[in-house]
Every structure is written in C-alpha cells, then in structure tokens.
C-alpha cells in the first residue's frame, strides 16, 4: 500500500506539486494522468525519494519513507522510466539481475530469478539472456525494463510513461501483458501517463492532475459519470464518454435471455467490443457464450446503450 499524505514540492516560488493526498491499495493499479507539466512525474519521484518533498510524507505499507535509508527504499520499490534506461554495457540477464546483485543474492538464486522473469515476459532465455540492449526491439527493451524492476520481487512498482516510446500496436499489447502480470503477481502499481486511453485501460483508480493539484482521484466509471471539475470532464473527452463507459463494463452486465444468429461473443468481453461488432455486422442482437463455449444468452444494441448513459 502506498499512502501519499499532503505531499508538496516547491522550487523557489513555483509549486510543482501542491498538497496531494491519495492512497493506492494493495494489488491495485493507480494511474496519474494529466497534461505535461502538471507535476505527475515529480509526484512519482517523491515516492522513491529521487526528489525530496518540501512538505508532507509518503508511507509504504504504513512505514514513513523518510525513516528508510534512500538506497534501501529504492531496492524495495520497482522503478520503470520512459526509455527504460537499460544499461548498454550489460546484457539482458545482467540488466535484470541489477537489484538482486545490489542486495547480495547468491549466484544460483539470481540465475533462477532471471530465467523465471524472462519466461514470464515471453523472452526465451536461450535467445535473449546474452543479448545487449541495442540488439533488442523497442517492445523487447520495454519488457526487459519491467522485468528488471520486478527482479527483487518488490511489492510496489512505480512507472513513469512506461509505454511512451512504443508504437501504438505494440503499446496496446504491452499494456495487456502488464495487466496480466500485475494480476498474477499482485503488485501495487502507481503509473504516470498523459494518455487517457492508457489510464482507462490500466487504472483501477485514476488520479487527474492539473497545474500541481490533484483534481480528482476516483474509479474510471466515477470519473466519467461524476467528473469533479470541468477540466476533468474535458480531459476525459465528452465525445468519448459513452464508449469509455462501455469499455469498462463486460457483456455479462447486459446479458439478456434468448438466442440470436451469428458468431457468439464472450461473456467477459467488453460492451464496447460487443457494440462495435454489432455495428460492423449490421445486426441488432448477437449470441453470448461463456468461456467454455456454451451459449448463455444474447446482447442487444438497445441493452448495451442503457449502459453507456449518464447516470443523471
């Protein structure tokens, strides 16, 4: 659990982060989103004390970060930056082994951990362990960057624009992979981005920042239906709202009894996917199947639309 308590950072007369408080619960992803210069990165970097706060405090699992020596604190918190900052003179295995080596793990344990992580990130150890960062594609570098941050099994992970350097196709795959790995490991993640879509795809909760202040910290659905300020509404995008809402809900929620013609959609798919397929195939209804493939009912355009409406 990461608790940020009235955190403030000033440089002379300019306030970069003003009195921000928020809590990231265990095993969840919080995404900080905002325009550039809003203070998101500064907020993130105050958590592992790369920047010292002017006021306020940060608690990691209830422990004040100021009471933990800097280096030890950073060994405990994974850190991924845009561009990843892989060490160009070390191969993939050595890069991933960085923190375990700093912690003095024995060789056998480090080698096992590196192999485990390479497998987890779908990088064949035989092929990739000895490669150098410049021999990897952008997507592979990104995976090594995250694997390196997770090497010493930190309970917390800080990510600063971790997908910023990837092209859109690889980016969405990388986001899905991160989500899957996070669900599997139960890591608590605080991620900074300026990409609203990324925030909605990854965030259990989203923090919107503007000009040093935290405007709203809420679940994605709440952000859409009850934006705290005009700026939040604008950032979320009024035209995008219904579709974002639909992408947060799964087919299960709009399931109706009965059958329909055509290829079935999975119960766990999002309503947005369902609507998009209905529009594309020119139908009003489509059948729904569960993960085992058995038909369980149908969804209709009308039923889906109910879920994309404002609550007011």
């Amino acid at each position, binding site marked *: 659990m990461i608790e940020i308590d009235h955190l403030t950072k000033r440089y002379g007369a300019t306030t970069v982060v003003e009195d921000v408080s928020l809590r990231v619960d265990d095993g969840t992803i919080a995404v900080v989103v905002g325009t550039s210069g809003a203070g998101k990165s500064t907020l993130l970097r105050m958590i*592992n004390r*790369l920047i010292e706060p002017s006021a306020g405090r940060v608690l990691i699992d209830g422990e004040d970060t100021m009471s933990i020596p*800097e*280096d*030890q*604190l*950073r*060994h405990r918190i994974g*850190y991924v*930056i*845009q*561009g*990843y*900052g*892989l*060490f*160009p*003179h070390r191969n993939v295995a050595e890069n991933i082994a*960085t*923190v375990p080596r*700093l912690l003095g793990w024995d060789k056998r344990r480090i080698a096992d951990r590196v192999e485990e992580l390479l497998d987890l990130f779908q990088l064949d150890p035989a092929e990739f362990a000895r490669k*150098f*960062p*410049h*021999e990897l594609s952008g997507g592979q570098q990104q995976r090594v960057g995250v694997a*390196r*941050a997770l090497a010493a099994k930190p309970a917390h992970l*800080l990510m600063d624009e971790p997908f910023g350097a990837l092209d859109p196709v690889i980016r969405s795959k990388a986001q899905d992979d991160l989500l899957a790995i996070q669900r599997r490991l139960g890591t608590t993640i605080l991620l900074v981005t300026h990409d609203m879509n990324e925030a909605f795809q990854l965030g259990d909760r989203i923090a919107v920042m503007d000009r040093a202040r935290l405007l709203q910290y809420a679940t994605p659905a709440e952000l859409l239906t009850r934006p705290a300020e005009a700026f939040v509404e604008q950032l979320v995008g009024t035209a995008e709202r219904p579709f974002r809402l639909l992408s947060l809900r799964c087919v299960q929620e709009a399931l109706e009894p009965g059958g329909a013609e055509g290829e079935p959609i999975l119960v766990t798919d999002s309503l947005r996917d369902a609507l998009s397929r209905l529009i594309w195939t020119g139908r009003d209804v489509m059948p729904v199947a569960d993960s085992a493939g058995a038909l369980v009912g149908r969804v209709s355009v009308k039923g889906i639309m109910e879920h994309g409406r404002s609550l007011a």
Partner: protein
Amino acid sequence: MSGRSFALRGAALLLLVLFVTAPQLFAFAFKPLTTNDAPAIYNQGSLLALTLSHLRIVFLATLASTILAVGLGIFVTRPSGQEFLPLSRSLVNIGQTFPPIAVLAIAVPLVGFGEKPTFIALFLYGLLPIFENTLTGLMEVSPQTLEAAKGMGMNPRQRLLQVELPLALPVILAGIRLSVIISLGTATIGSTVAAKGLGEVIIAGLQSNNVAFVLQGGLVVALLAVLIHDGLGMAERMATRRLGRPVDEIS
C-alpha cells in the same frame, strides 16, 4: 581486424624486435647513408637499453597523467566538484599550451638534468587528452541510464564504478592512446637534458652529421608508435563492442 593487416603488424613487431636486439644485421641498409666511413649503426650504447628506458619514461609519465586526469575528471563531474570544472579545464589547457621544450628549460634548473625534467614535461603534456576524454566520456552517459541506476538504489559509488566508468571507458582509453603517442615522440627531446632514450640516437646523428643514426632513432620511435597505437586501439574496440556503438564514433 583482417588477417592481412594482422600479418602486417606481426611483421612490424618482428622487425622492431630484430632491429633493437641485433642492429648489425641491418648495417647493409644504412651503409649508403653514411659518409667518410662513419659507423652505419649506432655504436655509443645498446639500442635495446635505450628503447626500454624510452618506453619506461613514457609509461611512467602516462600512468601519472592518467591517474591525475581521470581522478580530476571524476571529481569535477561529481556534484561536490562541479564548481572546479572551469578552473581545472584552464589549468590542464595551460599544461598543453606550454611547449615541452620550454618545460624542460624551466625544469632543469629546478630538478636537475636527467629523467626528472623529461618526466615532468611528458606528464604535463599528456594530461589534456586524457582529462578531456574522461569528461566527455562521463558526461555522455545518458541521463536515463543514470536515473535508472539511481532509481534502482545504486549509491553514488556503485553508479560510478558499475555504470559511469564502464560506459566512459572506451572514450577514456582513446584519450590515453592519444597521450601515449604524443609522449613517445616528445620523449626524444628528453635526451637534450640527458634522459636516456631514443632521442640520444637522433641527437648523436645530428651532431656527427650521420643520417643513418637519425633514421635509426626515428624508425624505432615510429614503429613503437604504430604498434602501441594499434594495441591500444584493439583494447578500445573490445571495450566498445559491448556498447553497440560504431568504433569510429569515439576515435
């Protein structure tokens, strides 16, 4: 390196070793350059001993320059030493502006004749390339890499030894190579103040108007320079290969 250029270097090395150990074998080649039956091969001392003491003083002076220049380079790129950066740059530049011969002239009255004034001149002259390259190498390390190193909990010492110096190494080596090559040539003037070295052969030739001597001294120094330049270049390439950068970029 291709097999052919490797063979060429092997031949140069063989020629050098043969020439300094058994110079009389080459007397036939130098005979035509002499007049009035003057000796064709340097006969006032052993070429081998002169070559070794020449190398010794170059090695010692470069070692001292390297220790000071790299140490200073590290110091002025740390937060605590940053304010000394402009000052140290101008000091090292002065070392390079002073012609070695002038340094010899000033040093002899202070420390006497022999190796000491030569050592001082080579040491001062060798500082600049190593210092500038150390600065470039350390400053070229990408801020992202340093941020990652810091964010993963490396302390300043670990960052320097495990990240900054290994990444700067090829550039620092290039500086050392430059410094060694300059010193090899410059060390010959050390013989004007009685330092033992290959300059003796050249000066003896100039005094007795014997072109053969001049050529012999020059030839040995040139072969040494080419071979050492190559050897250090190889070390640099090895250090660079891991970084995935083309070698030309740092030469």
